[in-house]
């Protein structure tokens, strides 16, 4: 008896040691009604419990009652159904499960009524989204909408689960066709990681373990993918941002700034700048209840002490002087409208951004996005569940980054001043270039080090630089380039690949080199195009819609006309 007890104790201690080491993945499930979302969630919760608890039970060598195959999930599904029909559709339910490798938080967004608002809410904290597609129906407009919202909210990992594969006889060609359809569409979105998987949520094929009914599928099971997908590098670890939550000052000796590291890495000795004052200091120490630490990274909650005595308060931000955020009172942003009352341009709202609350007013609506077609329409209002691009003025400066680069400093919510309701969520896409005194964002310390001026570059090359943003495909871009080149322009083509994240940096670099830069990115790279438009001087940016033209010669002629109108003409040939 005694030996048995000992064996159990070793087991549980080992289990705990290992278990306390695992990390956390948050994901969201999206699908149209009846695609099998509830069944899948039920499957994951139920079967993973098995996987999890059995690892401990196996130590005890108890008999195992395998639950593979025909579990009746009707009960479970009905439970969720009932919940859904209670009328509380405007909601996100959070569910939890764990495996020996990871803990998971599912944001489950039922209902289709308030889908955009719900999905945006669930997606805002998610690392990954599972988009369910019914194998019999293929890619539907809703699937596109789900993918769009996921990418809008900055989710890096998309899993397309082609469900009910049992109903199409586990056929590879059906799966492949759906993948191709989806890939086609997804090229327009900024999703760095796409994973396709055929599953049967009902029978469990490829959900927890790999199914032998689809030998043609070479990937891992859904759960295995969720357990192993690499999310650590999704964070921004290069630009340190530390929004101050509160000042900790228990006595005369101690003064620290409490907050959560939003991005980057913070170490004692690091130079920091306090925003908005701009005053510089260094990190003296990083204090926690468990002792001082040698570095802090997201999402650690710590208390930072600085070398110098300064006036720092809640809402201030610590950032490295070499890579500060944008300090601005005017932002370009995408809004998901969540209020019952539509957006009113005449009214003031509150914005909560990092640890700041500021008054704000929406100056203009650039456009509204049709979330099914992704087309843009002019708009004067935004209604519940609509998405639009807006320009916002704030009463005091915000310290922001582009949402694509920094989820924490690129996001905000809008609060109604009268009802106090949260009426919108916002993703910052840039700063409005029309603000007087706006300086280009890339005007950083490095520019001051340059020994060759733009004028010198221009004299050597023979014309000023310009960025031509055009759609119509790489082939057309190269054809146009060769026309321009023959006319004496020094040119370069950037053909966008699926990863759009470096596109703008590339374009700006080539532009800085003084060349006529043709960016073949098309309407698929909407965010970057918009951003380029707001970052680059208007007379150095040509946004050319080539989709209406077949003939490269014609496109080249039109572009040269535009160049000539702006005085961008080669002085030599």
């Amino acid at each position: 008896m005694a030996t048995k007890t000992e064996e159990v104790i070793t087991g549980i201690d080992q289990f705990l040691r290992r278990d306390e080491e695992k990390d956390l993945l948050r994901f969201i499930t999206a699908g149209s009604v009846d695609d099998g979302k509830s069944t899948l969630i039920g499957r994951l919760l139920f079967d993973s419990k098995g996987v999890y608890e059995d690892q401990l039970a196996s130590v005890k060598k108890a008999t195992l009652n395998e639950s593979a195959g025909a579990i009746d999930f009707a009960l479970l599904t009905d439970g969720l159904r009932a919940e859904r029909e209670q009328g509380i559709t405007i909601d996100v339910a959070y569910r939890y499960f764990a495996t020996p490798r990871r803990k998971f938080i599912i944001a489950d967004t039922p209902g289709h009524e308030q889908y955009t608002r719900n999905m945006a809410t669930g997606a805002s904290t998610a690392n990954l989204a599972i988009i369910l597609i019914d194998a019999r129906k293929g890619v539907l407009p809703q699937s596109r909408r789900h993918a769009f919202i996921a990418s809008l909210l900055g989710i890096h990992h998309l899993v397309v689960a082609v469900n009910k594969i049992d109903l199409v006889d586990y056929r590879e060609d059906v799966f492949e066709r759906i993948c191709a359809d989806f890939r086609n569409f997804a090229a327009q979105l900024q999703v760095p990681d796409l994973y396709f998987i055929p599953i049967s949520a009902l029978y469990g094929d490829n959900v927890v373990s790999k199914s032998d009914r689809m030998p043609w599928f070479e990937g891992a099971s859904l759960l295995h993918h969720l357990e192993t997908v690499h999310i650590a590098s999704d964070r921004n670890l290069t630009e340190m941002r530390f929004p101050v939550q509160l000042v900790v000052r228990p006595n005369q000796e101690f003064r620290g700034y409490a907050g959560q590291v939003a991005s980057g890495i913070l170490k004692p000795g690091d130079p920091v700048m306090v925003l908005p004052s701009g005053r510089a200091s260094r990190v003296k120490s990083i204090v926690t209840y468990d002792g001082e630490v040698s570095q802090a990274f997201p999402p650690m909650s710590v208390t930072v002490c600085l070398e110098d005595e300064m006036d720092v308060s809640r809402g201030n931000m610590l950032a490295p002087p070499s890579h500060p955020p944008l300090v601005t009172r005017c932002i370009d942003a995408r809004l998901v409208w969540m209020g019952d009352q539509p957006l009113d341009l005449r009214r003031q709202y509150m914005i909560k951004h990092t640890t700041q609350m500021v008054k704000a007013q929406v100056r203009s609506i650039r456009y509204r996005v049709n979330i099914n077609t992704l087309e843009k329409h002019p708009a004067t209002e935004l209604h519940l569940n609509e998405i639009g691009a807006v320009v916002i003025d704030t009463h005091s400066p915000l310290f922001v980054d582009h949402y694509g680069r920094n989820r924490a400093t690129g996001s905000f919510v809008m609060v109604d001043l009268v009802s106090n309701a949260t009426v919108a969520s916002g993703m910052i896409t840039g700063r409005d270039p029309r603000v007087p005194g706006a300086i280009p964002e890339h005007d950083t310390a490095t520019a001051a080090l340059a020994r060759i001026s733009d004028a010198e570059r221009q004299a050597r090359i023979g014309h000023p630089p310009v960025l031509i943003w055009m759609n119509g495909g790489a082939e057309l871009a190269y054809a146009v380039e060769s026309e321009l080149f023959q006319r004496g322009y020094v040119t370069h083509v950037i053909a966008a690949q699926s990863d759009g994240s470096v596109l703008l940096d590339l374009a700006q670099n080539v532009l800085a080199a003084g060349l006529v830069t043709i960016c073949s990115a098309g309407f698929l790279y909407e965010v970057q195009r918009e951003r380029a438009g707001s970052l680059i001087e208007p007379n150095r940016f040509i946004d050319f819609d080539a989709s209406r033209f077949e003939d490269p010669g014609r496109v080249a002629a039109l572009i040269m006309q535009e160049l000539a109108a702006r005085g961008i003409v080669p002085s030599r040939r």
Partner: protein
Amino acid sequence: MDGLTLTHLRMLEAESIYILREVAAEFQRPVMLYSIGKDSSVMVRLAQKAFYPGRIPFPLLHIDTTYKFREMIEFRDRFCADIGARLIVHTNRAAIEAGANPFDLGTQKCCGLLKTRALLDALAEGEFDAAIGGARRDEEKSRAKERVYSFRDAHGQWDPKNQRPELWNLFNSKLSPGESIRVFPLSNWTELDVWQYIHLENIPIVPLYFAKKREMLVRGSMLIPVERDIPLLPGDSRQQVMCRMRSLGCSPCTGAIPSEADTVPKIIEEMMLFRRSERENRVIDFDQEGSMEIKKREGYF
């Protein structure tokens, strides 16, 4: 890992600390509801961490029904003194003097008076605008949609249709006059996370959680503590039983379970095995607490 990734427990910890600091910064008069249970113990530890090296900037509020276990009250007083926390104890005196007890009123009515009413009164009396509670979303189905900041109208009522969407970690703390909120910093913790954290951090908890030989009233499969006089039924007997409490409430309404688990790891192990047996019996349930098997063993009245 690369040294720049937090474990799930440290991630939950960081998130909870962030929430506690937001509440302290954005509300005039926050208070932490302290129930003496394991979740409260975890919450207090998180508050200590959040404001270190400062003190916890808000008081702890315990609603004492006067039916709590003696061991709970002893623990409470020692614990609060040890960490230097400010403790407010509130009791619905009027109801006690009128003789409120679970045997005559029934559990529901008794709880209504001694817990719910008492809490609302205490919050009003202290003019608290934010009450921090230890509830978790995984406790039961209906809590899965609960917000971290949960709004109450001027009557302390919760309107499920009028809750605010919560995106990222941007909590909207704006209140209209008379409104208040409940804040749940442990929203994303599961029961297992709480136990693991207690283990990892060596957090003190009430000894009633640990198995020990205790004198119990045995009624069928129920184990009822004999802290005070309980009306006997035919067939009841008093016995020394090796047992422990899974949750702590009032002594007349909290059953014990037979158990040998006298350490935190053993409790965790016991919990895992419970669930496994449920699974084998094909009890499909989302909540870990909700299963009949456990409820029976706990002896719910």
